[in-house]
């Protein structure tokens, strides 16, 4: 080691002992043992530190200024410190705030970053101290604000209020959240609250060595992806990870790394109330001190005293207070708990989900009854088994409980049709009302109890917190097969309706992952297909309807998984990334919340039946009734007249009536075949015949493109028109099961086809808009329909081969 001589190298690095007075330098490194390093570093002189040489006479100590502190270093020590000359004053300024729970190692990191030179000052108006310091790193002068150690930002304590006010008044460029890795779940709660303020955050995963010693393994990269927050492992007391932390801070400031915390959604009910309150708040933003209206609304729901006071100067404070009170009452009644508690639970739910994905080992998690139940319910094997059993039970019970109410509605509809038939003279107007309107719309309305009970059951699963667990199990499965973890969200929405599901796929940034998700979401059987399943399952498997329906839903999931795998291997190659599924604590749902869910779904179902389905039913009736074929009618009348003339030739009146009925039935069938709809059906019949379908099912399938429930309405109209002349009215389920053409095998093949074939018109329009690609939309329509045909073909032909048909 040469000392005291000029060793300036090509890259501008020299020893501090050779540095020129008045010149700025950046410390590069230090030759020496750990004892010397610790001593020098503790003085605030560490790699990356910016220093100015105050005096260097060529002999004796060297005076320097670092972190606004003057130091005198012996020439021997200075000869071991390598520095790089900095020709210009750093121009770039950054302000960061250090936040964290008490005892998370925050002060150690603050001291590591800023050196011993802390500036301690009183924050205006309060007595709690706020510490400030500076660090020069690279081209940056970074102001570090040390926030008080807090567990949350709920403003219950002065520390929390300070933390909040510092964020708003100092407007830091980013917040570095010091998280104790050995107690990660509790520490992330504060992180979630910073995320709500919608400011960039970096997590310093501190004490990661202690966590590792405890057997807690944290996949910090995965955690970072899940939370949308850059994460740097650090060990504050050993100065590990400091440069990485500073590098990440600068990378964030320069936009090379993006900190975009995952937005936390509190569920439809809370979000609805939040939006209502936020809407009024946003009418006067001047009093919000920079807070966002949604955040203020959230704090009002949490009954935050400081925000409640702040809102008093709002132009619409009375209205806001009234709305908040109403919202709080509504939510309290719905959840049976204080809204603040529910919000806290949701935050912990999110954290719990993230930790379940990225943390393994004996983490000090909040062990409560939810954790105990989760040990079984989200277990890779028992979880999947219980999920399957619950789904089966759900469908089974739905059918069992709905059986009687469905019969009552059927009876009511039949009576109504009978009444109209008896009071109105025969003709096309009566046929329109009885066969078109009652046959079509009535066929759909009859399954209202199934819809009600199914959504009641789903609401129970959602409100107890089980649905989140089901999502977790499925997400893990999806991720294993190469689908983006986030994909599960649109797929879950897809069980309700494909339109919001396609829109929901926007959360997936990666275009390939997004397209795959959209292409398979259609197999998540939407609720509009439900009446078709209920009709067919009830008609052909009255004893095992729930089990058959469960098998159809299961088939949809299996096909989706298979298609993801296939698309990943062929059209869309690549890897996927995980996502947080929130795991809220289990809770007993309130009756009001359950009934509200059920009511909303029932109203929507009835509204759809009374609007678009009614319209289509009338149009379908027209297409099935016209054009009138006079020749068929004349032939029918001629045959009936002949029978009536030869009255005595029949051994009994019954035989004669049977023959007349047969003639009328055949004539109605011929008329239907000759109608516009019949002709269209006959054109496509050769294509669907290998699946066991006749032209009537073909017409029903085609009409389903408008809306899937229309399949049922069309079948109702077909049977209504076909049976119009015999003036009897029998439930559609009975007519279907008695039809000699439709065997249980044909029925199952039909269910498979309805499950898999192209989504409805609305969904396709949104698909086109969301992808912006006609090619992808055509691919979607084509491949789903081809897949539906192929699968139904395999089911029908295989069934016939083994003798089921």
């Amino acid at each position, binding site marked *: 080691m040469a000392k005291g001589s000029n060793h300036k190298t090509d890259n501008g690095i020299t020893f501090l002992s050779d540095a020129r007075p008045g010149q700025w330098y950046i410390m590069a490194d230090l030759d020496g043992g750990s004892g010397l390093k610790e001593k020098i570093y503790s003085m605030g002189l560490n790699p990356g530190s910016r220093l100015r040489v105050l005096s260097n006479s060529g002999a004796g100590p060297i005076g320097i200024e670092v972190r606004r502190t003057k130091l005198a270093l012996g020439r021997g020590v200075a000869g071991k410190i390598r520095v790089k000359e900095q020709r210009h004053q750093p121009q770039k300024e950054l302000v960061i705030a250090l936040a964290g729970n008490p005892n998370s190692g925050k002060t150690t990191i603050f001291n590591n970053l800023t050196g011993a030179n802390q500036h301690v000052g009183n924050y205006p108006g309060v007595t709690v101290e706020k510490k400030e310091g500076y660090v020069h790193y690279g081209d940056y002068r970074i102001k570090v604000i040390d926030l008080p150690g807090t567990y949350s930002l709920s403003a219950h304590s002065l520390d929390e209020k300070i933390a909040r006010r510092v964020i708003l008044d100092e407007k830091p460029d980013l917040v570095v959240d010091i998280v104790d890795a050995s107690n990660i779940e509790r520490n992330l709660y504060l992180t979630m609250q910073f995320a709500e303020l*919608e400011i960039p955050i970096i997590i310093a995963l501190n004490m990661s060595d202690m966590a590792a010693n405890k057997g807690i393994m944290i996949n910090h990269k995965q955690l970072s992806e899940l939370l949308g927050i850059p994460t740097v492992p650090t060990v504050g007391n050993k100065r590990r990870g400091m440069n990485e932390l500073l590098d990440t801070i600068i990378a964030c400031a320069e936009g090379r790394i993006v900190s*975009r915390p995952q*937005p936390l*959604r509190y569920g*439809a009910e809370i*979000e609805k109330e939040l*939006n209502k309150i*936020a*809407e009024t*708040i*946003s009418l006067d933003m001047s009093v919000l001190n920079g807070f*966002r*209206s*949604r955040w203020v609304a959230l704090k009002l729901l949490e009954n935050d005293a400081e925000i409640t006071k702040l809102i008093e100067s709002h132009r619409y404070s009375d209205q806001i207070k009234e709305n908040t009170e109403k919202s709080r009452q509504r939510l309290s009644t719905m959840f049976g708990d204080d809204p603040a508690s529910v919000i806290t639970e949701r935050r912990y739910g999110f954290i719990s989900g993230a930790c379940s994905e990225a943390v393994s080992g004996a983490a000090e998690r909040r062990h409560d009854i939810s954790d105990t139940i989760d040990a079984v319910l989200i277990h890779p094997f028992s979880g999947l088994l219980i999920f399957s059993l619950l789904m089966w039970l759900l469908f089974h019970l739905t059918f069992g409980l709905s059986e009687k109410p469905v019969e009552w509605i059927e009876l009511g509809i039949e009576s109504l049709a009978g009444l109209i038939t008896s009071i109105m003279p025969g*003709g*096309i*107007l009566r046929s*329109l009302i009885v066969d078109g309107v009652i046959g079509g719309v009535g066929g759909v309305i009859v399954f209202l109890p199934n819809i009600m009970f199914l959504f009641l059951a789903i609401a129970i699963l959602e409100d107890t917190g089980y649905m989140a667990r089901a999502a977790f199990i499925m997400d893990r499965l999806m991720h294993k097969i190469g689908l983006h973890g986030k994909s599960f969200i649109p797929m879950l*929405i897809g069980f*309700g*309706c494909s*339109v*919001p599901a396609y*829109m*929901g796929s*926007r*959360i997936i940034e990666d275009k390939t992952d997004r397209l795959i998700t959209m292409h398979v979401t259609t197999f998540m059987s939407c*609720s*509009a297909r439900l009446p078709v399943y209920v009709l067919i399952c009830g008609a052909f498997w009255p004893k095992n309807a729930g089990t058959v329906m469960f098998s159809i839903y299961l088939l949809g999931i299996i096909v989706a998984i298979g298609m993801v795998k296939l698309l990943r291997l062929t059209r869309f190659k690549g890897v996927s990334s995980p996502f947080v599924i929130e795991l809220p604590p289990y809770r007993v749902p309130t009756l009001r919340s359950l009934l509200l869910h059920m009511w*909303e779904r029932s109203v*929507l*179902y009835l*509204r*759809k*039946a009374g*609007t*678009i*389905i*009614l*319209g*289509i039913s*009338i*149009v379908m*009736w*027209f297409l099935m009734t016209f054009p009138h074929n006079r020749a068929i009618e004349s032939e029918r009348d001629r045959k009936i007249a002949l029978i009536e003339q030869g009255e005595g030739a029949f051994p009994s009146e019954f035989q004669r009536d049977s023959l007349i009925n047969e003639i009328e039935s055949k004539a109605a069938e011929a008329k239907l075949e000759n109608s516009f709809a019949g002709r269209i059906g006959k054109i496509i019949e050769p294509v669907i015949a290998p699946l066991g379908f006749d032209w009537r099912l073909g017409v029903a399938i085609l009409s389903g493109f*408008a*809306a899937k429930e229309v399949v049922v309405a069309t079948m109702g109209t077909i049977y209504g028109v076909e049976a119009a002349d015999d003036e009897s009215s029998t439930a559609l389920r009975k007519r279907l099961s008695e039809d000699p053409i439709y065997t249980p095998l044909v029925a199952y093949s039909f269910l498979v086809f309805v499950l898999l074939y192209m989504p*409805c*018109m*609305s969904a396709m*329009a*949104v698909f*086109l*808009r969301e992808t912006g690609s006609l090619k992808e939309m055509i691919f979607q329509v084509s491949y789903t329909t081809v897949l539906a045909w192929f699968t139904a073909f395999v089911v029908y032909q295989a069934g016939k081969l083994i003798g089921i048909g």
Partner: protein
Amino acid sequence: MMETIVVIAIVTLAAIYTGRRLLQQLKGGGCHGCNCKNKSQELAAFFQKKDGADIN
């Protein structure tokens, strides 16, 4: 004759109504019965928020 006129009127109204609804669906307006339009709006607000903008 009267019966035919009434039927034609009903079918025409139903066809116009259905046609308009289907056209709205084709424009991506949702199917109006299943709340997907509202759902879409909720989601749009959600994504707007995600992109860094205040939902209001």
